[in-house]
């Protein structure tokens, strides 16, 4: 928080602040006139300067409230600090009233300052009450500021988390896939140049798409699937006849929005922990279906139950799980099951149609 009082820190707050002098002046006029010590006119001329001084004097309570917060600090220290500050501020206030009374001598007579002095205890008590009121208002102000600050902070964290997540996701996707693909290209350049070129093109397509999609907040399922297919084309050149893809993509399902690169880790898993573990390879099945207001996505692949677990197993799954939870909370469902020699991942989330 800045050193400047938050009310003075922004334009357009000065007049509303000055206008708070009106009720204070009215209160003081009533108070001074009621005692019978002053006539109404006398009380009013005294009350207005006192009210304007009060407005600015009691703003300084903010600094005291910052220095001795009502919450979290030590109680004794807080009470003593505020008692001293209240006594000081009220003294200054009452003294300023005495000054005003002296200035008003030509108007109300030479005894006016003495008559004012008789009212000092009442004014001092009023000052203490104004201090407490000001303290309460400032406490509310500080709490609101703290809440806003916390919200800003939370938002910043969210943005940072998203960036970190995408970075992690990209780092997780690319390296080994890239190295293996480059190795295949290196091999094909010698034996089958047209296929080497084809592989370069598929690889570029996949990279371009994954980089572009990662920047967006949501993408339609059809784009996510197109990315997955570019990826599977590259893998297809590596694995040859071992890799087959089967898809059942319903139109309604394809139009739904999902976080970008949500399926990518799952498709990669299906290849690396599924197809690649089997001599005969197999079929990766992709399904996206909208039923009512739910989007259901299924990825199924065969795997070798006897194969040793490969590194990185579970990283992709937990990544997808946490991204779903971050986006949809408890409204999303994620299930990964092993059924004999088949691996099944099912995602279910609220269907959000693209505009």
């Amino acid at each position, binding site marked *: 928080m800045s050193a400047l009082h938050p009310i003075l820190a922004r334009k357009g707050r000065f007049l509303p602040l000055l206008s708070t002098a009106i009720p204070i002046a009215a209160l003081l006029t009533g108070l001074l006139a009621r005692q019978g010590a002053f006539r109404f006119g006398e009380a009013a001329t005294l009350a207005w300067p006192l009210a304007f001084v009060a407005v600015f004097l009691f703003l300084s309570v903010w600094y005291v409230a910052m220095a001795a917060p009502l919450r979290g600090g030590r109680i004794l220290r807080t009470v003593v600090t505020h008692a001293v500050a209240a006594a000081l501020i009220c003294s200054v206030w009452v003294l300023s009233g005495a000054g005003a009374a002296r200035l008003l001598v030509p108007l109300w007579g030479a005894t006016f300052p003495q008559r004012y002095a008789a009212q000092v205890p009442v004014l001092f008590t009023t000052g203490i009450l104004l201090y407490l009121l000001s303290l309460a208002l400032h406490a509310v102000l500080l709490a609101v500021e703290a809440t806003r600050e916390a919200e800003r902070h939370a938002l910043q964290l969210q943005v940072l988390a998203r960036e970190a997540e995408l970075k992690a996701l990209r780092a997780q996707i690319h390296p*080994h896939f890239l*190295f*293996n693909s480059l*190795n295949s290209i290196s*091999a094909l350049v010698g034996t089958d140049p047209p296929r080497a070129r084809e592989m370069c093109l598929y690889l570029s397509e996949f990279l371009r798409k994954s980089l572009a999609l990662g920047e967006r907040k949501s993408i339609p399922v059809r784009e996510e699937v197109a990315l997955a297919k570019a990826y599977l084309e590259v893998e297809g050149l590596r694995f040859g006849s071992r890799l087959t893809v089967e898809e059942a993509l319903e139109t309604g399902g394809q139009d739904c929005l999902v976080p970008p690169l949500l399926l990518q880790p799952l498709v990669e898993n299906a290849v690396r922990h599924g197809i*690649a573990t089997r001599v005969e390879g197999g079929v990766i099945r992709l399904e996206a279906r909208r039923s009512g207001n739910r989007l259901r996505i299924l990825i199924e692949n065969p795997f070798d139950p006897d194969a*040793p677990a490969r*590194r990185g197993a579970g990283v992709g799954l937990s990544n997808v799980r946490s991204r779903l939870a971050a986006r949809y909370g408890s409204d999303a469902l994620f299930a990964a099951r092993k059924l004999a020699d088949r691996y099944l991942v099912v995602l279910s989330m609220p269907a959000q149609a693209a505009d």
Partner: protein
Amino acid sequence: MTDAVPVRVLIVDDEAPARSILREMLSDRDGVSIVGECANGFEAVKAAAELAPDVVFLDVEMPKLDGFEVRELIDPSIAVVFVTAYDSYALRAFEVHAVDYVLKPFRAERLGDALDRARARRGGCRGRWRPGRPGRGP
């Protein structure tokens, strides 16, 4: 290559393009005879026993048995060169006394170095196939 000590090589990788680049680069080398190619760990163990290669160029992630399991199951005197896209297995490869650890993709020279190391290792272990030449240490 002037070092023409004959060496019997077995290539093991589940991806056809990966096998073909190994075949292409290794067959350019003097004295190399490629005795077999395998597409999974199980075949590799069988081939290693039947064909008695001097060196196996071995992928790590494969169906049936992975590269490390193959290393355990074959004759320990066979020199093993791991060929993989994963640098994270390097330490483990060192622990199982692999002759070398080549990262995909690779240059022909890098593969040649690995082959030379394997030749040297075999020279130190067993003399019957390369009489009269002292082995160079790895």
